[in-house]
């Protein structure tokens, strides 16, 4: 990838590139957002940025207004890479850049300095942002930034980036660094400090860990401070007791907020609003200039585009998606998720994955696409494949969950926990089977447990807004495509022809009305669309349960298929997709056949 390592000596103005680097979980993504205005998603655990992001920073260099490319490099502890995500960072450095912003965690200086020292081996000027000084202070740690700057031979700017502290100064420093005068000087300084061991100013020599320790000792002071309530809560959450009871309470709270809240929004607020005002409005509007007939039905008929797009997307799906991200973003920023990974590592290991993979599974409840991308941080390919397969098989995305809850609760509430248990059972089964089939090793757990934090309100709200915007942009189009197809199939009568052919499978084996084939067709495009059509049919409880099960296990959507191809090649994507469909039809059919015996 980095065949022709191109160095920008600084004289070259076009293609000025700045790398944003640092240990995982030091706030790089927040820097990126603040500098570029592009919203990167950040979380309170290692490795949110697995594929890098690129944006533009506006700087004034030598009196000239410049738009400079900034790259948010995945967090790395070292340039000796140990995972797919980390090797990206090393490749970027080898590829060369005009400057590097290295973010340091003031509360954990020693380890962060190791990376800082490694960066000096490259011929690239660096500016250091000493971030999280507020957290460090709370822990009784004070760092002398100027002194540290002298040790590193570069500017060190203290920052609290979530509060924008130090941002302007950092920009100014970048401008100085990129100015013509400086770029010439800098490369000289760097070569003197690291390529020539005799002239090396650091006492530790080439042992960077030793040097890091030395520097830390010289520039920082630590006083004993009592542990705060959040620290103690964080400690408690990771112990079996009270950690497991707390996990149960958190789980219950998530269900109450997402399922209870979603149900409320759907049935009490949005549903009635749409039925009473939005749908009648469009019926009235289109009736003004379109004569009764097929076209009018396609627009505002029972399956009309303007009817189901509101009923399905706005009432059925949005409330759950919104509430899920309200809860999930909070959990991510708080640092709770890695605690769960540690607490349940022993159980997860029994089913063939690391506890760390629970984070990807939790992300999968939102959407499988970021979960699969996130799993690049998994420590082995086997681990990645097993958790990806388990997510594709048995973890419904949040929009599908919303649709499933609506479907089930229309019949009887006990179906929801039953389907939940079935899902857990099948997740375990999928993981165990994938673990047997896929060759390789699952590595032991090795993760840093971040401090438990109260999410910074502004950063949290911005993340929530980014997620929702992302959902609307990404999901809206395929959902509309599915809805138009549904409307056309239904209102042109094409569905009846297809239903006849699908009858042996849909009606005989699964015991569903032949029309339910719409769900199987639309489910290829989006997961929730495999459920939504079932809501329009008059089903028996058994049929609803079978339909829900098939939908739960059915094909991950087109976007997931796309990401599977991209990450694992077509063969894996096809294997997962085909086996999910077969598995879904098999399990659904078995439940139906057994159910029939009792009815």
């Amino acid at each position: 990838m980095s065949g022709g390592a191109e160095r920008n000596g600084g004289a070259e103005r076009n293609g000025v590139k700045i790398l944003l680097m640092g240990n995982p979980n030091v706030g790089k993504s927040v820097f990126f957002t603040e500098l570029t205005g592009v919203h990167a998603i950040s979380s309170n655990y290692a490795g949110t940025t697995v594929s890098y992001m690129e944006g533009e920073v506006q700087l004034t260099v030598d009196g000239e207004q410049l738009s400079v490319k900034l790259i948010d490099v995945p967090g790395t502890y070292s340039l000796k890479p140990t995972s797919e995500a980390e090797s990206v960072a090393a490749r970027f450095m080898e590829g060369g850049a005009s400057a590097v912003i290295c973010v340091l965690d003031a509360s954990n200086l020693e380890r962060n300095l190791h990376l800082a020292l490694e960066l000096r081996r490259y011929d690239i000027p660096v500016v250091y942002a000493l971030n999280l000084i507020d957290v460090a202070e709370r822990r009784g740690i004070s760092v002398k930034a100027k002194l540290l700057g002298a040790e590193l031979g570069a500017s060190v700017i203290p920052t609290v980036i979530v509060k924008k502290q130090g941002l302007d100064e950092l920009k100014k420093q970048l401008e100085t660094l990129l100015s013509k005068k400086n770029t010439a000087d800098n490369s000289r300084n760097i070569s003197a400090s690291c390529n020539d061991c005799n002239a090396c100013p650091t006492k530790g020599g080439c042992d960077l860990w030793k040097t890091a320790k030395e520097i830390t000792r010289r520039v920082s002071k630590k006083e004993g401070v009592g542990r705060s309530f959040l620290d103690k809560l964080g400690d408690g959450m990771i112990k079996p007791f009270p950690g497991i009871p707390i996990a149960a309470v958190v789980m219950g709270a998530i269900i109450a907020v997402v399922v209870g809240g979603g149900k409320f929004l759907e049935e009490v607020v949005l549903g009635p609003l749409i039925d009473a005002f939005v749908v009648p409005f469009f019926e009235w509007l289109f009736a003004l200039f379109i004569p009764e007939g097929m076209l009018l039905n396609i627009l505002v008929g029972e399956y009309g585009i303007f009817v189901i797009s509101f009923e399905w997307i706005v009432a059925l799906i949005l409330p759950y998606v919104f509430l899920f991200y309200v809860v999930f973003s909070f959990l991510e920023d708080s640092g709770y998720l890695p605690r769960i990974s540690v607490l349940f590592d022993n159980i997860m290991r029994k089913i063939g994955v690391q506890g760390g993979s629970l984070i990807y599974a939790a992300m999968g409840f939102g959407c499988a696409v970021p979960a699969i991308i996130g799993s690049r941080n998994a420590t082995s390919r086997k681990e990645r494949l097993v958790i990806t397969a388990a997510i594709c098989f048995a973890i419904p995305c949040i929009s599908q969950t919303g649709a499933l809850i609506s479907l089930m609760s229309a019949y009887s509430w006990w179906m929801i926990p039953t389907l939940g248990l079935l899902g857990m059972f099948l997740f375990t089964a999928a993981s165990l089977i994938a673990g047997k089939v896929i060759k390789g090793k699952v590595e032991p757990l090795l993760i840093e447990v971040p401090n438990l934090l109260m999410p910074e309100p502004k950063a949290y709200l911005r993340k929530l807004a980014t997620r929702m915007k992302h959902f609307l942009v990404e999901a809206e189009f395929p959902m509309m495509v599915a809805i138009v197809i549904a409307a056309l199939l239904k209102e042109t009568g094409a569905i009846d022809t297809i239903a006849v052919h699908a009858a042996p499978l849909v009606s005989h084996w699964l015991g569903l009305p032949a029309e339910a084939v719409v769900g199987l067709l639309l489910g290829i495009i989006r997961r929730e669309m495999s459920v939504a059509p079932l809501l329009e049919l008059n089903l028996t409880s058994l049929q609803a349960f079978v339909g829900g099960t098939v939908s739960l296990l059915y094909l991950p959507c087109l976007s997931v298929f796309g990401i599977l191809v991209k990450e694992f090649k077509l063969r894996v994507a096809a294997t997962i997709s085909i086996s999910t469909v077969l598995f879904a039809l098999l399990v659904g059919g078995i439940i139906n056949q057994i159910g029939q015996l009792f009815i």
Partner: protein
Amino acid sequence: MQNLYDSEKNGDFEILSIPEIGLLENIGLRAGTKVTVQNRYVFGGPMLLRVEDTYSVAIGKDIAVQIKVAEVGTANKKTPIAATVRKSVTI
């Protein structure tokens, strides 16, 4: 000398040697690092360490058994006699 996994809870230890796992060193665990054992999870689960009284790391059993440690204060006494004594005490 004892392995980290079998070291007692709440004890302070200094790492003597680590297996060759890149991430282990990158995450800040190497010979000379001081760690406190915070938790050890049942059923072959991981153990939780406080590193240099600064941050926490969870580490799988398979790795922890390969890390050799000494109780803080004894790390520098590498005389054979001291080592033998320690061994007989831990058994």
